[in-house]
């Protein structure tokens, strides 16, 4: 069989291009930056061929080592995986471009070696990217544990890279929390393996029943993953870690890493634990609601921009968990809304942190009250922040609006007034803290200070991500058929032969 590159097997390239890139960048630090950027471009590019392949074959499984489900490990690609891979590629390529300028401080080292941060950022970031892609692709629960661990350690190392007391403290707490979460997840894996004799998600979905061991596994795995997703009671580690890391790293943490554990929880819920009528769905909904209110109020109280954005992440994660109680009767569209919120939050939050980085480079501080007339000294940065803010607030025409509209629709049709009220209040509170920042962008600071130089690539990458979050608002008719490939939200496990969504019929844009 001639090695045709379009065969699904080559999805593995998504994991090994960044991994090998990281190794090369580690081996030859002097040219680490160029190698890193090249690997980033290649990885982002290798997501594209998957799209037509997915459209042609529908959801596909790749048998690593040729051994097949019970014995070997399988990777699976369906609509949900594709969306997550595309999200990671988009945010990844933007942050990579941003990092090339952000991390090169003024006096580079005399002996020509790139600065310490610059040298280690690229290998760590590429390993993180490989771990993300591996996690999205894998459909074997123990393999997911190893990717979770790889992801956690890489994220901690990146957080600690900026070296300040805050960053190291945040990184330490993040490491402990991340390891604890992974162990909780592993305990769940152990229980499931010994109850049903297999590690593959597809087979487990057919064998899982409503026994006490499944509930214990559900409890352990959910607890572990909630710690890593920083849902309300377990969110204490997120703001210090995300705020003290350097700007491109906090963008990666808030936009991608937190979403990976949410994706995993969603995947487990859809395939294994969905129809267990445990009260967990309502519990997650309640915690999500509290997270929205508490996170937004905390964000409003912050005096520093990066802490404000970090608390905004805590609030927006609350929105994602509202989908659990609503989807019980709401059906696949509610899950579609949750995924849509994940995608638009990733783009918007990454844009926000990148703008925070530009403002930090511009004024050497990120105190909101002292943003000295940045609206016309850095128009593109504030424009990006506003576009991202529109999506975070859920105002039309952004992706956040689509997610919020569909969740509101489910809440109203199921008569859950409380959730609807929380969503609206969350939107208003988000508007309060976003416009608090934009308002101060117009006014002069108490003590005017002269400006640092902000390279244009930093501003334009942030604007591109912000515009992406807005364009998502119009992309639902394009993305929904893609998300439905392989029926990830259907009750059945993703079977390869699933009928392909009307995606093949071609998008109906501006039909005259």
């Amino acid at each position, binding site marked *: 069989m001639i090695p045709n590159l379009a065969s699904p097997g080559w999805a593995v390239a998504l994991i090994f291009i960044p991994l090998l890139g990281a190794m090369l960048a580690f081996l030859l630090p002097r040219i680490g930056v160029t190698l890193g950027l090249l690997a980033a471009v290649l990885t982002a590019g290798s997501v594209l061929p998957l799209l037509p392949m997915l459209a042609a074959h529908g959801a596909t499984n790749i048998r690593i080592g040729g051994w097949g489900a019970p014995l070997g490990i399988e990777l699976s690609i369906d609509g949900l995986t594709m969306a997550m891979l595309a999200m990671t590629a988009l945010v990844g390529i933007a942050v990579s471009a941003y990092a090339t300028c952000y991390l090169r401080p003024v006096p580079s080292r005399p002996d020509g070696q790139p600065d310490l941060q610059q040298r280690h950022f690229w290998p760590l970031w590429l390993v993180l990217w490989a771990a993300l892609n591996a996690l999205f692709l894998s459909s074997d629960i123990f393999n997911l544990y190893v990717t979770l661990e790889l992801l956690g350690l890489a994220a901690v190392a990146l957080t600690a890279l900026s070296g300040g007391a805050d960053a190291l403290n945040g990184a330490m707490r993040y490491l402990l929390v991340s390891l604890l979460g992974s162990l909780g997840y592993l305990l769940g894996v152990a229980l499931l393996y010994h109850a049903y004799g297999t590690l593959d998600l597809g087979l487990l979905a057919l064998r899982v029943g409503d026994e006490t061991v499944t509930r214990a596994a559900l409890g352990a795995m959910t607890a572990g993953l909630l710690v890593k997703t920083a849902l309300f009671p377990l969110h204490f580690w997120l703001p210090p870690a995300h705020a003290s890391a350097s700007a491109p790293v906090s963008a990666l943490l808030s936009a991608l890493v937190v979403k990976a554990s949410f994706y995993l929880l969603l995947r487990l819920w859809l395939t294994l634990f969905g129809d267990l009528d445990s009260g967990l769905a309502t519990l997650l909904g309640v915690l999500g609601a509290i997270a929205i209110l508490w996170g937004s109020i905390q964000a409003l109280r912050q005096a520093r921009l990066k802490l404000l954005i970090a608390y905004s992440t805590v609030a927006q994660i609350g929105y994602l968990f509202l989908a659990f109680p609503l989807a019980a009767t709401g059906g696949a569209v509610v899950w579609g809304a949750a995924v849509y919120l994940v995608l638009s939050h990733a783009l918007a939050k990454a844009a926000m942190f990148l703008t925070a980085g530009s403002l930090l480079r511009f004024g050497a501080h990120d105190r909101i009250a002292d943003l000295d007339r940045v609206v*016309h000294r850095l128009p593109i940065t504030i424009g990006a922040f506003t576009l991202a803010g529109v999506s975070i*607030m859920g105002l039309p025409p952004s992706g956040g609006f689509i997610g919020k*509209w569909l969740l509101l629709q489910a809440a*109203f049709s199921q008569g859950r007034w409380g959730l609807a009220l929380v969503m609206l209040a969350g939107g208003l509170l988000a508007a309060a803290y976003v416009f608090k920042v*934009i308002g101060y962008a117009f006014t002069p600071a108490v003590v005017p200070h002269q400006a640092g130089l902000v390279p244009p690539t930093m501003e334009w990458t942030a604007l591109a991500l912000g515009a992406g979050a807005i364009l998502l608002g119009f992309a639902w008719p394009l993305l929904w058929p893609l998300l439905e490939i392989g029926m990830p939200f259907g009750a059945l496990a993703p079977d390869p032969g699933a009928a392909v969504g009307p995606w093949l019929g071609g998008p109906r844009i*501006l039909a005259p």
Partner: protein
Amino acid sequence: MNGTFWLPMLVLGSSLLPGLLIFFLAEDRSGIRTLLNLAGAVAKLLAVLWMLWGVYNGVAYEARLPFLPGLDLVLRVGPLSLLFVVLSTGLWLLTTIYAIGYLERSPHRSRFFGFFSLCVTATVGVAMAGNLLTFVLFYELLTLATYPLVVHRGSEAARQAGQVYLAHTLFGGALLLAGTVWLYTLTGTLEFTPRGFVSHLGETHRGSLIAIFALTVVGVGVKAALVPLHSWLPRAMVAPAPVSALLHAVAVVKAGAFGVVRLLYDVFGAEFAASLGVTGPLAVVAGATILYGSLRALYQDDLKRRLAFSTVSQVAYITLGVAIAGPLATIGGLVHLVHQGVMKITLFFCAGNLAETLGIHKVSEMCGVGRRMPWTMAAFTVGAFGMIGLPPVAGFVTKWYLGIGALEAGQDWAVYVLAGSSLLNAAYFLPILHVAWFRPPPPAWPHEHDFGPRETAWALLLPPVVTAILSVAVGLFAAAPFSPLEWATLIAEREFYLP
């Protein structure tokens, strides 16, 4: 077929595209900026007139874009939407000329004109929205586009005003969104249909329909500056004059009033709303707003704040006319949409002229200004007479139709409200005229700019004079075929009271 698709998009794009381009223009390229602005305005006016002729002959213009499962973004141009589109397009052309003159030396003009064009795009979008979802989308876009203009000066006061403005409008937007989604879950469609698409629900959902009406009307009422929700308008006067003129007197406030009209006629249907018993309270609130606005205007020494409170009361005429829901009252309400726009913009232009040329902001400083700037004050006087409701000027036509409509619908109290408010209008406009014309001018004006032979720059003088002439023309030739009154009667016949 595609002609009817591309025209609405052209109307939308003719201000969106120049707006986006202007954002990236350097500050000193004023030539290109003016060209872009005027080209956009003229193109939009031509497209609108083309559609005016088309709609008059019964052509249906519609553009549809898939947006959500089962919901599309729809731009549909009917007689009602055209009324508002013509108003905002015409006045946008005049205000652009005015703004170019007004902002001659001030900084950040690219940013200003960029957002200015986005505002008009949103206003035209609100007017042409074919269903409630598109309406909500452009309604929120209008908030986002006007905020930077309110905060344009960059002072702490401007920021505070901006925060108040946002608190109100975003709160309204959230309520409107909640009502819209709730309605969609009940009816399954949001398309504007002439006699409302809610009546088939009947008694079963009476409670929730009333709640939805309350949510959506309050959401829209914030921008229509109905009494409890009006306090953002006077504070938004901190914005530069062109912003106060076009946006806070015409575009934003009218979007709110237009929203009330859409809700009452195209969502709930006049009869069904009356049967729900919601039009009564709405009429009372409108009446209260009329009186309250006029009363507050009496005590404002700052000219623009007085005009702002006058706007609060005048816009409530539209809501009153529509809430009374008789055919004649509806015509009165609809036609006031145009009349109030034309008259109020004249007043704001004159206020801007006074501020820009002589540095006058307060009524007490306006002694003898008539001698110094006769043309401006003449336009101001015409506008003031219109507001009071003296016959030749447009205001009289509205009050006449509202009065007859109220009597026809048996709502006698409305006539007393109208009479009372006319008196109050006179009470706060005539002193201004008296001070301006019959008082000796002070030795020196606060800080006078010399604009050469004419009293002020031509770009500042031309617009108010033109709008003053328009106010009189609309009043005199009310019966002419394409006049606002005729068009309002056509709307009433076609859309609201089908035979």
